[in-house]
């Protein structure tokens, strides 16, 4: 066993003083409870209402329609994500390790089916929608791509008026009806329900609506107004002037500085660093040099100043 003063210490044989552990614990609990009640009464807690797909499509109809199109043409964040949602990309990697890819698409999301076609299929049938869906489902993959590409090509000229999304093309087959019906479905609130109930009546899984919301710009715009973006130390903040998860400051810090602030693999790199630092913190008692810092810095002289004064040291 090491004889280092950073590892060993002789058992205390010096003087003792009275100590009422139950009284100390009771007083501490009462003080903390009163402090908590005071802080809760004075500062309350934030509760900005949730964003719905209905709200998004009503306040930003073009952004919603463009996002729906990105789910169809495969350019959305989710469509290009990779594991665990699909195999569209290798995902982030740390050196040769592509951890997410190795585990595969364990939460499969098909953006065309899950965000557009299935919700539309759940809609009460109208002649136009029935015809559009029949046309879509009966078409070859190449034909669908041709239609979606034609719509995408003119999507920069998309307009929204009188509750209708319009683009200047006649070569997009059923796509204009599908996008427009999805917009109306969203504005009625029906899409919120359709996205969460695809797996049955009871549900507590909001993966699909959250991914869809995150693919648009609306949610991010609201977050930016509330200073919650990643570049604004967003992960550790919450809405309003509240401390949030201040204990995540080091994790969030790495995202603010190069090379992580510009890296395509920032998430796995930051996680790698934090895992390593956590391991180092865990193993401080066993790491020579690191475990000597308290003795070298002598901060302990402040903590035990009465003891050293009484010892004359």
């Amino acid at each position, binding site marked *: 066993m090491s004889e280092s*003063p950073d*590892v*060993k*210490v002789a*058992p*205390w044989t*010096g*003087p*003792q*003083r009275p*100590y009422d*552990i139950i009284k100390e614990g009771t007083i*501490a*609990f009462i003080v*903390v*409870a009163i*402090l*908590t009640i005071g802080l*809760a009464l004075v500062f*309350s*807690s*934030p*509760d*900005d*209402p949730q964003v719905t797909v209905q709200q998004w499509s009503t306040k930003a109809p073009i952004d919603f329609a463009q996002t729906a199109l990105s789910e169809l043409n495969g350019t959305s964040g989710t469509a290009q994500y990779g594991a*665990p949602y699909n195999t569209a990309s290798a995902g982030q990697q740390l050196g040769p390790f592509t*951890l*997410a890819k190795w*585990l595969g698409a*364990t939460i499969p999301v098909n953006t065309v089916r899950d965000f557009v076609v299935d919700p539309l299929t759940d809609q009460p049938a109208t002649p136009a929608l029935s015809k559009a869906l029949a046309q879509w489902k009966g078409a070859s993959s190449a034909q669908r791509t041709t239609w979606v590409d034609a719509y995408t090509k003119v999507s920069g000229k998309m307009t929204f008026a009188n509750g209708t999304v319009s683009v200047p093309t006649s070569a997009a087959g059923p796509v204009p009806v599908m996008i427009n019906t999805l917009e109306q479905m969203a504005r009625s609130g029906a899409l919120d329900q359709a996205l969460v109930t695809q797996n049955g009546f009871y*549900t*507590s*899984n*909001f993966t699909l609506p*959250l*991914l869809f*919301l995150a693919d648009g710009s609306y949610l991010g715009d609201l977050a930016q107004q*509330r200073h*919650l973006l990643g570049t604004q130390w*967003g992960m550790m903040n*919450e809405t309003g002037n509240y401390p949030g*998860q*201040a*204990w995540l400051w080091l994790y969030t810090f790495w995202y603010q500085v190069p090379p992580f602030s510009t890296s395509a693999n920032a*998430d*796995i790199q930051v*996680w790698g660093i934090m895992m390593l630092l956590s391991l180092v913190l*865990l193993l401080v008692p066993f790491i020579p040099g690191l475990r000597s*810092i*308290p*003795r070298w810095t002598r*901060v*302990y002289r402040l*903590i*035990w*100043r*009465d*003891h*050293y004064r009484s010892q*004359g040291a």
Partner: protein
Amino acid sequence: MSSTEIDRQWTTRLRRRAARRLPPEKMLPDTQPAYVASWIYVFGVTTLSALAVVILSGFILALKGPQWWHVSGIGHFVNSLHLWSVEIFFFAMVIHLWGKFFMAAWRGGRSLTWVTGVVTFLTSIATAFTGYVSQTNFDSQWISTQAKDGINSTGAGSFFNVLNFGQMLMWHIVLLPLVAVILTGLHVLMVRAKGVVPPFEEKVEAR
């Protein structure tokens, strides 16, 4: 039944070992070493007290369900108690951790006490995080959609889906608190068994 047979029983051996490691005077001491005289020692018991308030306020929120606090003034107040007790908990815990670092509190066979403390700290971060993504409001929507990328990049997203509210709520109110409370209990028992770490020995200069 022979006394040898009783001596060999698991129950007997466990009881004797527990009594040897944690006799009543260590478990509930009425004295402590004279060097334990600094404000830094307050932060351990403050952390425990805040944890108690976190759990009590969490119990009330659990009784009424995850949506209650959005529609009830009393519910919102209980949520505020939960939030601020968590803030106090982490504030006190971090100061406690740094205090113990500068005391080199792992000395004298106390390294496992340090390890359980750090694991409790990390578990508490995960517990708080799952609480933030279970709030069913804008914060939980934004934090979960942002955090998914970090967790997914490690591969953990395959079995820890931050967008699955039901899963996150269960982690927050059952699994992680259970681990945190068990670890905290072990940590406190270790402190009681080993006692508070003594100061570094320094030579007294001759006058």
